[in-house]
């Protein structure tokens, strides 16, 4: 969280109108997928965004890339406010800001061969001047992600999940971006394949100085790959800090129980560990509790929690927490 932030999200809000569809017309409800979220990512760093399904972490990534039109707040990229830009004005930024998707099965167009999937952005952004150059560049990219020449003219359905994810990475890589949103890039993959992808991402960060927004539900992976980490719950950012500060000194009761719920691959440590088991389920984001979103499952509820959603407060060293327990 340094001054030379490449990307800043300021009070970002993304609300969806949800039509409850059943027989009949149904009613419209507002889903506050992202509710007033702020953070910044330093150049060349990785910001890990963790939370359980439905917490809004994916929406944050998509709103930053302007795949959704933000309801409120702004996104500042390299000093420029990109929130209100039209698609034409934003086009140069498309080259700089890329994304890697969660599901390697739906993120590649089944009708296009690998050469077209990876080559399309090159042509679109005029990064190559001839077909021969494009073919060379595609081959180079394919090799960079560890695939072979033989794979270039094949179609997505012929690859395994891990190989597909590499193709997705090559597509993002094609334009040599500065910033990449990695939206759960490994959660659909097998354990032995996950590490391959993590290593590729780390290697590219070292080589090209990429900045990542790494979205995941896996606290271990986030700890491994991130420099800074933010924790989301029901559309709210509840805690954020530098990685070791956060994992070593977590303050928000949700973060604490989330970490303690992570199973660790060490039998002795697992047996000796005191786990905080949260009661109940995450409330529906369509019908969130009043005040603090976590109060329905929190161990340390105060009377004020039901009235007011706590604001993020810096408790020192850039460690921010949104909890009434921290304020009193």
């Amino acid at each position, binding site marked *: 969280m340094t001054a030379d932030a490449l990307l800043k999200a300021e009070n970002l809000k993304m609300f969806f109108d949800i039509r409850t569809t059943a027989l009949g017309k149904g009613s419209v409800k507002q889903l506050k997928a992202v509710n007033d979220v702020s953070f910044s990512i330093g150049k060349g760093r990785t910001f890990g965004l963790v939370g359980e399904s439905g917490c809004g972490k994916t929406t944050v990534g998509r709103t930053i890339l302007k*795949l959704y039109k933000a309801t409120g707040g702004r996104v500042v990229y390299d000093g420029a406010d990109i929130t209100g830009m039209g698609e034409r004005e934003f086009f140069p930024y498309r080259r700089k800001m890329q*994304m890697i998707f969660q599901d390697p099965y739906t*993120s590649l167009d089944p*009708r296009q061969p690998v050469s077209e999937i990876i080559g*399309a952005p090159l042509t679109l952004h005029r990064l190559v001047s001839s077909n021969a150059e494009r073919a060379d560049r595609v081959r180079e990219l394919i090799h960079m992600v560890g695939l072979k020449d033989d794979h270039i003219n094949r179609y997505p359905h*012929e690859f395994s999940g891990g*190989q597909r994810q590499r193709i997705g990475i090559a597509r993002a890589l094609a334009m040599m971006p500065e910033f990449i949103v990695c939206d759960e890039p490994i959660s659909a993959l097998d354990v032995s394949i996950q590490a391959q992808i993590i290593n590729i991402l780390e290697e590219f960060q070292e080589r090209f100085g990429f900045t990542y927004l790494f979205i995941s539900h896996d606290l271990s992976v986030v700890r491994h790959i991130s420099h800074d980490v933010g924790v989301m719950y029901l559309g709210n950012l509840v805690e954020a800090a530098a990685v070791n500060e956060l994992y070593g000194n977590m303050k928000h009761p949700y973060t604490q129980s989330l970490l303690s719920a992570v199973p660790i691959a060490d039998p002795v440590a697992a047996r000796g560990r005191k786990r905080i088991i949260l009661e109940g389920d995450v409330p529906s984001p369509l019908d969130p509790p009043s005040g603090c979103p976590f109060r329905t499952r929190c161990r340390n509820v105060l009377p004020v929690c039901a009235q007011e959603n706590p604001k993020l407060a810096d408790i020192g060293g850039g460690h921010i927490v949104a909890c009434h327990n921290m304020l009193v």
Partner: protein
Amino acid sequence: MKKTTDLPGDEAEYLTEGEIACLPDGLFERLPDGEKQTDVINRPSVSYWENARSKLMADPLAMAGFVVIALMIALAVAGPMIRPYAYDEQNYSVINQTPDGDHWFGTDKFGRDLFVRVAYGARISLTVGVAAAFINMVIGVIYGGISGFVGGRTDMLMMRIVDIIMAVPSLLYIILVMVFLGAHMHSIIIALCFTYWLGTARIVRAQILSIKSQDFVLAAKVIGESDLKILLRHLIPNSMGPIIVTVTFLIPQAIFYEAFLSFIGIGIAVPVASWGTLANDSLSNMNTYPHLMLFPALAISITIFAFNFIGDGLRDALDPRLKR
């Protein structure tokens, strides 16, 4: 779950200790990386369309369907030419003949040659089927495509309109239009166009919506492709399969409607011969001259069968659910 005999080579993969001792030298040396078979795809590379084509070619019923339709087209084009009769040429010396060398399918009560009339019927049926299916595909694809692609309020409004029209069985509209336009071939096509595209529009819309929600469309946006480009490069190629299948099934339906309308007397009017009209004409003498019914009935059924087989084959070949 059945128990079968052992598959060959199953046990043989284990070696006994004795056999291990007898193994030739070098077996316990490092296996060079080059000899490891990793990340190699052995199967030949096939695109969606190549795969669909080979699947279709391997489907005997669909191929039979294609052959039958080819024969029907040949009949429609060449049939009237290879016989020395006109479809409305009456000859009272040869009424109600059974099939023979002069009149392959026999003659009707006015002595008209049934083979030529059936061949004319093929012209009408195939024209109606193909024209109606094509026009409706165009309308349906444009309407459904806009609705699904634009989305939001436009989509809601457009689909409400479809719902309103669809609430009434399309046959009623078709009959009304036929009454209004009179009994001609073009009125049948126009009548079918009135409501027929609704189904196609719905399918196209659903298809576009489902593809739109796929991550590869988002990915296209992320690399900066314009909406138009996304439509042309991703949405249309991916929805083509189901659209083709739908249209294939529209053809036999249109042929059915033409025959049906002609049969109940509001389709094609005499003396022009459509299969439905021929069937209707033969009703009064059916007990005595069943062949007058047989040939048009066979022609209708075989044609619709053939188109349905082609449709089934195409669906199996193009259905994305069968593919990983």
